């Protein structure tokens, strides 16, 4: 494409830029003239779904985003919560779904790189990474290739940068066959008095480009992320961005070094839509104009046009507005780290973004309009009608008995161990990981202190599909429970809303329902949303993904002495299940595996009971009464107990259930709001009583048997080694052959 050659903006060109005819008309009205090609490119990325949130903004505004712990809610590069004593936790989750489907290694790697930049741009050192991954059916021909590429890419990037990857989730479902999801989350640690924002306040300040050189990577990446796939996309293969984690590591160190000084007015990573959105947003937030001289931009390729430079998504680049006079100090730091450094413009009082290249003005646009004129759509939506609940009796008992059923479930694609994944991630680097992958939430220490940050991510798309509001409420609550189970005070969440085409009312209805679920849960749990990301159009040939609002959450461990995990460890302990047991089998893993279908309503969430149970469990942990805690989620009670036994390599004897529900429904039902705790036998009665006083059912469910098997009276016994074998071997075996 050539900027200087005369050209005509045709309907095709407009459509290629992902703008509707309506939108282009609005653009003409705003400018009162035809845009240049560069200007068209700039608007197309600013107005893309990815940058503008045009379909989702209306509903995102309804989410609770405040609370005494919140330092920064949505709207900046990442959200920030207070950890006390001058520490702040900076975190966000972001999707790299389409790029990872096209090139799994680089797509996932650059997703990790991008989310880390969002975090360290605010002054935080990244201290933990997580990832939520959804792949197609295990036997789909593309699945293994995608799993191995994505996992290698996440590890390749995070390991090299030296940030531990401590948690996440992996699901397999045919609904993701042609649209996998790769959501990466980064958690950073900052000092509250050293937080950096993106507002480029003040006129005449140098605008500085640092990091890697600009190439023609991912041009149109931002619009690609918002466009539906079709069968041709396998061939189309747009320019893929390649990540350079080594440069990212240097960039982190250099930025943090510069941040320790007093030189920075504003800083922002160049993410989707690179130079365009970073300059527009920084100038708009600062209330200034900006003049850019593209001749100064460090370039990797020859003959790059203004259009290409403004739209390039080359990785590992940052934009900084410096206090005048500090250029030399800054340049010294970036040179020391062997990074490119160039003053490419300055802030102005014109209120315009003026881009010049080779002596020509390639774009001259009003900043506020550019940053704020994106359309906002209140798209028509149709609410999902949730199915009626089913009775536990309607789902048959396992043919192979309760213990056989347990083995089947532990070896299923839903529940099999993800060790094969997380052993490819360095989860210990930085020397502060105290609860490792495999637990309910991971915990990293606040370096040099006794505080800890707990982090987790979760969503159960089968629940959300059946009932978006209830299912999403459940996702929020499950992260809250995961944090509680390791002894943390839940602080806040980030969300990554992955949905299909919002222009279809039923899909938009899923999105709306999900937002309502988040809003309700966050409001009651005082667990606000501080950052997030929306990924729409995850569909191919009209077949969309299951609605997947991934929730990432962080909590504070005030003193790491009180950290808990789920490994049984104290001989002689008994196990108590806290929370109501109704044997809920609708939409469960059990139903999917044994009835080979999913039906009925998903398990309901009672936020009031969740609060009570969570508070009780947290006090028991802090009183050091418990020696292990696990929340009950996928697969139900027996799976939870088996996981505790396996983690600690300690056998248990289960007490027979004597209530009215079918036994298999009690062992495998997914009733919400439950925890299993391990306590000394002499404390049991007191704890049961304390729970009942809160109106929370509680039951003695098992005791440590002192042997190495899981035993159920009247059913027999299964050695832990056998359970471990089936649980651990599914994924390695799947991946063993290409």
């Amino acid at each position, binding site marked *: 494409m050539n900027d200087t050659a005369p050209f005509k903006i045709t309907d095709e060109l407009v459509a290629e830029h992902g703008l509707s005819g309506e939108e282009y008309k609005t653009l003409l009205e705003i400018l009162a003239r035809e845009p240049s090609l560069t200007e068209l490119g700039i608007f197309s990325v600013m107005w893309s779904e990815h940058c503008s949130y045009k379909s989702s903004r209306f509903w995102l505004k309804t989410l609770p985003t405040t609370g005494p712990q919140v330092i920064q809610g949505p709207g900046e590069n990442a959200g920030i919560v207070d950890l006390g004593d001058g520490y702040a936790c900076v975190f966000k989750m972001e999707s790299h779904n389409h790029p990872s489907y*096209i090139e799994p290694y680089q797509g996932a790697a650059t997703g990790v790189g991008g989310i880390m930049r969002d975090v360290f741009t605010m002054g935080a050192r990244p201290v933990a990474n997580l990832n939520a991954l959804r792949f197609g059916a295990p036997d789909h021909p593309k699945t293994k290739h995608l799993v191995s590429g994505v996992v290698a890419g996440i590890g390749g990037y995070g390991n090299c940068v030296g940030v531990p990857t401590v948690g996440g989730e992996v699901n397999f479902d045919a609904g993701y066959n042609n649209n996998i999801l790769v959501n990466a989350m980064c958690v950073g640690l900052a000092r509250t008095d050293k937080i950096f924002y993106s507002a480029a306040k003040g006129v005449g300040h140098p605008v500085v480009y640092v990091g890697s050189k600009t190439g023609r990577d991912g041009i149109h990446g931002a619009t690609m992320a918002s466009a539906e796939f079709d069968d041709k996309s396998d061939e189309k293969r747009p320019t893929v961005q390649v990540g350079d984690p080594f440069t990212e590591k240097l960039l982190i160190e250099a930025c943090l070094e510069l941040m320790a000084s007093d030189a920075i007015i504003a800083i922002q990573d160049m993410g989707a839509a690179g130079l365009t959105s970073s300059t527009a947003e920084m100038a708009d937030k600062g209330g200034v104009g900006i003049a850019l001289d593209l001749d100064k931009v460090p370039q990797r390729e020859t003959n790059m046009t203004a259009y290409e430079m403004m739209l390039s998504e*080359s990785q590992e680049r940052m934009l900084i507005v410096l206090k005048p006079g500090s250029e030399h100090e800054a340049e010294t730091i970036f040179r020391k780290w062997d990074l490119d450094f160039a003053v490419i413009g300055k802030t102005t009082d014109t209120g315009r973004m003026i881009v010049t290249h080779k002596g020509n003005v390639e774009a001259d646009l009003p900043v506020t309009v550019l940053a704020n004129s994106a359309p906002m759509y209140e798209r028509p939506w149709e609410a999902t009608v949730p199915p009626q609940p089913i009775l536990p009796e309607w789902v048959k008992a396992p043919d192979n008995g309760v213990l056989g059923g347990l083995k089947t479930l532990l070896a299923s694609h839903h529940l099999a161990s993800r060790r094969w994944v997380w052993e490819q991630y360095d989860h210990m680097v930085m020397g502060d990981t105290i609860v490792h992958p495999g637990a309910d939430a991971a915990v990293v220490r606040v370096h040099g202190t006794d505080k800890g940050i707990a982090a987790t991510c979760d969503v159960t798309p089968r629940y959300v599909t059946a009932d978006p509001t209830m299912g999403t409420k459940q996702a929020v609550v499950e992260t809250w429970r995961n944090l509680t189970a390791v002894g943390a005070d839940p602080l806040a969440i980030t969300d990554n809303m992955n949905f299909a085409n919002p222009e279809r009312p039923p899909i938009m209805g899923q999105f709306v329902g999900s937002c309502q679920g988040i809003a309700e849960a966050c409001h009651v749990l005082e667990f606000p949303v501080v950052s997030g990301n929306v990924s729409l159009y995850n569909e191919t040939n009209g077949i969309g993904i299951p609605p997947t609002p991934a929730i990432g959450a962080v909590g504070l461990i005030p003193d790491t002495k009180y950290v808990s995990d789920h490994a049984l460890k104290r001989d002689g302990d008994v196990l108590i299940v806290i929370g109501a047991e109704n044997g809920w089998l609708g939409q469960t893993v059990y139903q999917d595996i044994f009835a080979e279908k999913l039906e009925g309503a998903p398990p309901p969430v009672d936020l009031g009971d969740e609060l009570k149970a969570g508070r009780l469990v947290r006090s028991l942990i802090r009183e050091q009464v418990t020696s292990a805690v696990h929340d009950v989620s996928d697969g139900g009670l027996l799976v939870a107990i088996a996981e505790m036994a396996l983690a600690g390599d300690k056998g248990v004897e289960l007490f027979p259930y004597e209530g009215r529900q079918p036994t298999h429904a009690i062992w495998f039902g997914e009733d919400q709001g439950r925890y299993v705790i391990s306590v000394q036998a002499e404390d049991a009665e007191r704890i049961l009583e304390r729970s009942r006083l809160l109106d929370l059912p509680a039951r003695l469910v098992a005791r440590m048997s002192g042997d190495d098997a899981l035993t159920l009276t009247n059913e027999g016994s299964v050695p832990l080694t056998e359970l471990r074998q089936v649980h651990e071997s599914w994924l390695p075996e799947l991946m063993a052959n290409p």
Partner: protein
Amino acid sequence: MKARIKITLKAGVLDPQGKAIEHALGALGFSGIKDVRQGKYIEVTLAETDEAKAQAQVEKMCEELLANMVIENYSFTLEKD
């Protein structure tokens, strides 16, 4: 037959390895070095003796496994043993 296959990054695709090698060569005192690019070199011995068939076989291997066609190109030579 022996196939000697070169796999290189497509033009314009960032090559972090090449960049780092170029930098290291500079630091070692080599001057006038530029455009360092790193790729892979793979040797495969084939049972196939017919040149045209071997050619087709290697092409298929490259496209299906050896090269990542999204970012890489390949070229090869064949040699009778």
